[in-house]
Each structure stands twice: as structure tokens, then as C-alpha cells.
């Protein structure tokens, strides 16, 4: 299909469709709900009915209302966390690769230090010390996630920085900022975009883990990760309640990654197997 003079493959269109659908549903869905996400409207794990199409959860709250409301918090937080972690990770990773020397040494060793400590324990310490307001939560997870982004960006950018056109820019006398922005960043993007698609989905799990410890989104407010966990035991009884938020996470993951794949493949040659 051709959109704005660009050929867009079907897979990418499907990804866009899924993502846009989820975002619209989460943004406007709660407006049409007759009951709140934290209201108890029936028994534990009541089966889906006409009135509650996705059934009820472990406390008898409407699954659909919680899914839509929890989606706002989850997607919003995940997006903010991933965006900030990439801002920090990509800029420091490229700077380390291009500048090298002491800047690279300091950044790389600090990242090693952060990565050597268990992520969750570190998050717990920071959140206990600074409180669990949303900005602190976002900041903490973003910084911890950015260590992974730093690693991958640095390794990709090191390869790009060794190419002749970067040498040409250096020998022209260009400053560090120009080289980072105009020469290296644009040519390191494909693996970074792929990583974005993955990290975005990992953020759900991290938020869920923190919620479990009472540090993320506080009960009774919903988020997708906690919804999976809260209803996990239902699986033993053959109830599909935990599958619903899990499917929502899976769908969004697939949607985002289909778009990411397309963005990557736009700049790389065809690969495939012999028929």
C-alpha cells in the first residue's frame, strides 16, 4: 500500500492498526463505562456475560473497565520510561563511542557498576529513599533501563564511528556534537529502533514487579502487569481472567514490533532463504 509516497508493507499496516486500535480504546474507552474500574460488581472470576464481556477479576471487578483504565497508566508510563531511557542511553552511548578516551571509560564503568547490581533491588532502594511518586518512578526505571540502551548503542556506534565518512568529518575539524548528531546517530538507528520495540514491552514487566512490592502503581489502581499477577491463580481453575491482560500486552508488543521491523527494513537490503 502507498501512503504519502511511501510503500508500506501489509505487516507494517497490521502493526499500525493494532497499535492505533489499542491507543484509541485506552484513550476513549473508559468514557463509555457505566462503572468504575475499582468498583466491585459481582463475584470472584464471574464468567463473561453480556454486561461484562470479559468477565470479572479476583475481587469481582469488571475486567474490561480495569483493562482500559489500567492501559492508560501502563502505556503512558511505559512510553515515558522508554523514551527517557533512550534519550539518556542513546546520547551517552554515542558520545562514549565517538569521543572515546576518559569519557568512554567513565560512562562504561558507571554502567557496568549499575548493571552489576540486581535491577529490582536497586529500584527498591531508590524508591524507598525518594518516595514512590510517579516522576520518581519514571526517573528511576528510566535510568536503570538506560544502562542496557547504552550498551547496545555504544557497540553499534563504535562500528559506525570507524567508517571513513566519520573520519572525514573529524579531519574536517567538526565538533563532537555535529559528529554525534549528523554522522553517527542517523546511521546507528536500525538496531536502536529494534531495541525500542523490545524495551517498551519490558517496561510493563518492570512496572508490574514494582507494583507487586507496593512501589509502582498502588492498588486498587490497575495496570496490565499487576492484573496478570493478581489473577494468576485463576489458571489453576481453568478461568481465562489472567489471559486477558496478557493478551493485551502481547498484542501491543506485536503491534509495536511490526512497526519497528518495518522501520528497520526500510534501510536494509532484502534477506531470505533459498527456495
Amino acid at each position, binding site marked *: 500500500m502507498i501512503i504519502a509516497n511511501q510503500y508500506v508493507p501489509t505487516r507494517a499496516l497490521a502493526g499500525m492498526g493494532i497499535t492505533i486500535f489499542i491507543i484509541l480504546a485506552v484513550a476513549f474507552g473508559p468514557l463509555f463505562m457505566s462503572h468504575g474500574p475499582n468498583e466491585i460488581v459481582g463475584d470472584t472470576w464471574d464468567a463473561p456475560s453480556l454486561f461484562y464481556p470479559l468477565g470479572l477479576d479476583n475481587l469481582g471487578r469488571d475486567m474490561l473497565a480495569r483493562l482500559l483504565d489500567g492501559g492508560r497508566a501502563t502505556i503512558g508510563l511505559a512510553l515515558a520510561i522508554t523514551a527517557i531511557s533512550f534519550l539518556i542511553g542513546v546520547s551517552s552511548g554515542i558520545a562514549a563511542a565517538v569521543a572515546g578516551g576518559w569519557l568512554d571509560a567513565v560512562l562504561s564503568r558507571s554502567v557496568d557498576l549499575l548493571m552489576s547490581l540486581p535491577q529490582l533491588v536497586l529500584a527498591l532502594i531508590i524508591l524507598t529513599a525518594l518516595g514512590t511518586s510517579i516522576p520518581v518512578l519514571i526517573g528511576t526505571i528510566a535510568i536503570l533501563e538506560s544502562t542496557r540502551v547504552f550498551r547496545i548503542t555504544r557497540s553499534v556506534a563504535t562500528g559506525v564511528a570507524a567508517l571513513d565518512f566519520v573520519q*572525514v568529518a*573529524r579531519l574536517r*575539524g567538526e565538533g563532537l556534537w555535529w559528529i554525534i548528531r549528523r554522522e553517527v546517530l542517523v546511521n546507528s538507528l536500525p538496531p536502536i529502533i529494534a531495541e525500542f520495540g523490545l524495551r517498551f514491552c519490558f517496561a510493563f514487566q518492570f512496572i508490574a514487579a514494582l507494583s507487586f512490592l507496593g512501589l509502582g502503581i498502588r492498588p486498587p489502581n490497575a495496570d496490565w502487569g499487576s492484573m496478570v499477577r493478581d489473577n494468576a491463580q485463576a489458571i489453576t481453575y481453568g478461568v481465562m481472567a489472567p489471559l486477558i491482560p496478557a493478551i493485551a500486552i502481547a498484542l501491543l508488543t506485536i503491534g509495536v514490533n511490526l512497526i519497528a521491523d518495518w522501520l528497520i527494513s526500510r534501510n536494509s537490503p532484502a*534477506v531470505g532463504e533459498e527456495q
Partner: protein
Amino acid sequence: MSFRFSEPSILRIEQLSIVARRDCGEEVTLLDDINLELRPGEVLGLIGESGAGKSTLGLTALGYVRPGCHIAGGHVFFDGMDLFALSLEQRQKLRGRRIAYYAQSATAAFNPSRPIIDQVCDVPVRHGLCSRQEARRRAIALFRSIDLPSPNTFGDRYPHEVSGGQLQRAMAAMTMAGEPDILVLDEPTTALDVTTQVEVLETLRQLIRERGTAALHITHDLSVVAQTADRIMVMRKGRVEETGAAEKILLAPQTPYTRELVSVQMRPHMTPTGPPRADNMTLAVNDLSVNYGHMRVLDDVSLSIAPGETLVVVGESGSGKSTLAKSIVGQLAPTAGSIRLCNEPLAHFALRRSRDELRRIQMVHQIPDTALNPQQKIRDILARPLSFYFGTTHQQACLQVMQLLERVHLPTDCADRLPTQLSGGQKQRVCIARALAAQPDLLICDEVTAALDPIVAAHTLELLREVQRETGIAILFITHDIDAARRLGDRVVVMQKGKAVDSGPIAEVFDSNTRHPYTSKLLESVPQMRSDWLDTLIAKRRGQPSSSVDGAALEL
């Protein structure tokens, strides 16, 4: 030669067309109506510029088409079997065993973590021809027959423990281990130095002759294919331009394209303009030495270039040519010695040089694909030095970009394109234009023609001469290509193992009777456009009179 006309062909390609489908659904014809016949023992040279479809054609002989491409029509018959009608499994049984492929780079073809002999034995063992012990014995016999040093233990070494030329010849042994009927040689000597190329060519030719293997020899170098091929097929843009006996193509080419191809490689040497002597040298390098750790890669090299003069540095890879260029531009710090630009000393590191000093030395790299940022339009690439060094306004810069493009003979609509949309030769012109935009005093060209096809390379050299005539800049031209050196250079420095072993005006160094032995070896190794060149050279090196008198001798 050794093939027999009466025998039926081992490979027959009939009206083959191959089409590539791009992501956006657009179709590009790679091969158009190709007919080809190869008899047992015959060597067919496939020649043409990059993008002519010669590799695509070579791969079809293996029953292989690259992903994204498909056959639009025609057949490939191997020994009577229609290759593309066979199942993938059947085709895989033929590959390596009856049809072998010889890749360009041995370093990429060998697994670095296994001894050489294990990999040579893989094909016969896997195809069930013989036991591993028997395969080992045969491999050692092969090593011995191609004169590899200490053949009994050679194979026990790992690929990084032997020289590049030896590894390339070991790959010839690996390819022949399955005793194939057809050998597809895809640019087998392109990545090699001239001196190594001689050895590898001789090994390949010897193996082909001894075993009566038929071969497709793909290359862009006519003088190389002249040494091996019985017949030559010239390809251009996916079509056959001309086919004929090797001597006929060399001596009496029919089509205009083949004629240009032949004449480019046979062009008489241009007369040097005579070095314009000046007291004020553009560049003076004194006793320069560079160490990598404890290894000395550049040893007391001195040279100077006057304005308007071209100094050529020749030598094999590893001789320190590129190290020399890198230390002049300030990418590598020398351990000792000095570099002066127009009599003013230069700081060793580019970071310590002033912006104006950086501007006055510009460099053009070997591979234009990596020297241009693939995400920037040609206009932005060329405008940047203008605004960076001269503070040119955007409007003014756009105007000057057009002038630059015209100066390097590129159409002005290139400005809006990305580097990936240009051909290799066009990209190299953009690199030259970018260097000229800075209005330098010295232009360093590092193997600028090495990655280009012969015709394109010849035009690029002409462009450099033209630019030099117009602007009077000094050029430091680094190359391993003796022909290019003769065409462009005024003076020459011959380098070997980090030392300048010979220097002086080109004519004196190359043509005098008292040449340095290394210079002689280098010059002799340059393939010439006559089919008995390799025979004569090998005979001379072995101290025997030339055995081949039947080749078509062609005086240059």
C-alpha cells in the same frame, strides 16, 4: 587447449533471464536472454563492470539464485539435468562436489577456528567420496602439487597462521578436493596484491589444466582473464555484449564497449608533465617513523611534493602506504620525524591543527561507499565544507555545489540524491568534489581507483589530472596499481615493509636498467594483455626458457 570440441557441453544455459523484485514491487532485469555453453575442460572468462550480472550468472551454474530474485525464463542444464527443475536437496548434492565455487576472499571462506586440512577434507567426506583418512592423504598430495610449503604439516595450521596468498591457494585446494566438473571462480584474485595474484593465478590454472575441470572465470580485469580463458564472454547490463576466443577478443574486439575495455588497459603511458620544481614544497615529510606497539610499520620515510606535482607511492598491502597517509592527515601520531606543510611544521594530531591547516590537506578514500554518509544528500555533503571553512551562506553554497558537480562531470540533478542512488564511479567523483570544495593545497588519494571498474577508474584518473591542471594542487597518490601510477605520476616512491626502497621520477625508477630488485618484481607481476604473459613470467622465475610460444603475443 585441453578441451575437446566433440564432447557434449557440461553446462548449457539457454535463454536465461533473471529478475529481481524490489520491496516496493518494482522489477529489475538482472540477466536478459543469456545463452552459454561450456565444454569439459574449457575455461570461459566472464568479464564486465560491476552490476553487469556476471556474478548472478556464475551463481546460476550452481543452481542458485539470490534471495529476492527469480528466474523469468530459460534453463540451466548441467550434464543434461535441468538444475532449477531439481529439488533443493538434489542441487545441494551437486554443489561442492560436482560444481564448486571459489570465493573472492579466502579469509572469509575459511572458518578461523578449525585447521585448514579439516576444512579441505569436508567436501569429499560429507559427499561420501572417501574416508577422512583418505581425504587427508589426497589433500596433502594436492598441497604438494601446488607447491605449498611443507605440505605434510601445512594443513595442520589455522587460517591465520599462513600468509594471505597461501590461504588463497589452500582455498583452491579446498575447491578442488571434491574433484568437480565445473569450477566457478568469482573474482578470484581481485583482492590480492599483484605479486600474490601471480601465484594464485598459476595455481588455479595448473589445477584446472591437470584435472581437466571446466571453469567460469569471473573478473573485471581483461589481462587476468587472458591468462586462463579459452573463450571470453563480455557482459554489460545483464546482456551478452560479445563472445569469442580469448585472442580474438583481445586482438580484434567487435563492439564499441569491448573496444573501450581493451583500449583502457592497453593505453600507452601518458608522458609525465615533468615535475615543476619549486623551493617551496607543498609537503615535506622528514624521517617519519610510526610504531604500532613494538612493531615499526613506517621506518624513516622522507618525501616531498611540489605544488602541481603528483607523487605516487606504490607497494603491496602491508608496506605502510596507508599508514603514511594517516600520519600526514593527523589520524596517527608518528613516533619520530616531522611533517611540514608549505614550510610550516604541522602538529602530529589533527585535533591540535588549526582549522585552516586541516582545510589545506584533503583526502579521498579507497571505498567511496563508506566515505559518504549514506543518510545525507549529495548537496549537504558538498555544502558542508563550504559553510564550515568559508562561512558560505546556504544560497551561495547551493550555487557552488552545482559548480562543483559540473567540475567533476556529474549531472547537477545528483545534488538531490542520496549516495546509495549513485554508482561507484559517481560516488568517487562526489568524494573528489568534497575534497575540492575545501580548496586544498594537497590532495591525498588513498587507492581511489582500487574499488572501481577499469573504464571508470581510467576516467577518474583523467579527472584528477584535469583538476590538477586547473588548480595546480599537489597530489599524493597511493596505489598498488602500477598502471595507474604510470598514468598519473610525476615522481614515485616505492615502499616495502615500511621503508622507502626506491624513489625518483617515474621514468627513471620504472624503466632504468638498474632498478631496485623489489621494483622489478612489482613491475613484472603486473598482468599484461597477452595470453602468454603468465607462462613467460613463471618460466623466468623458475629459470627456464618460456615453454609457451603458441599464445597470442601482443606487444604493448
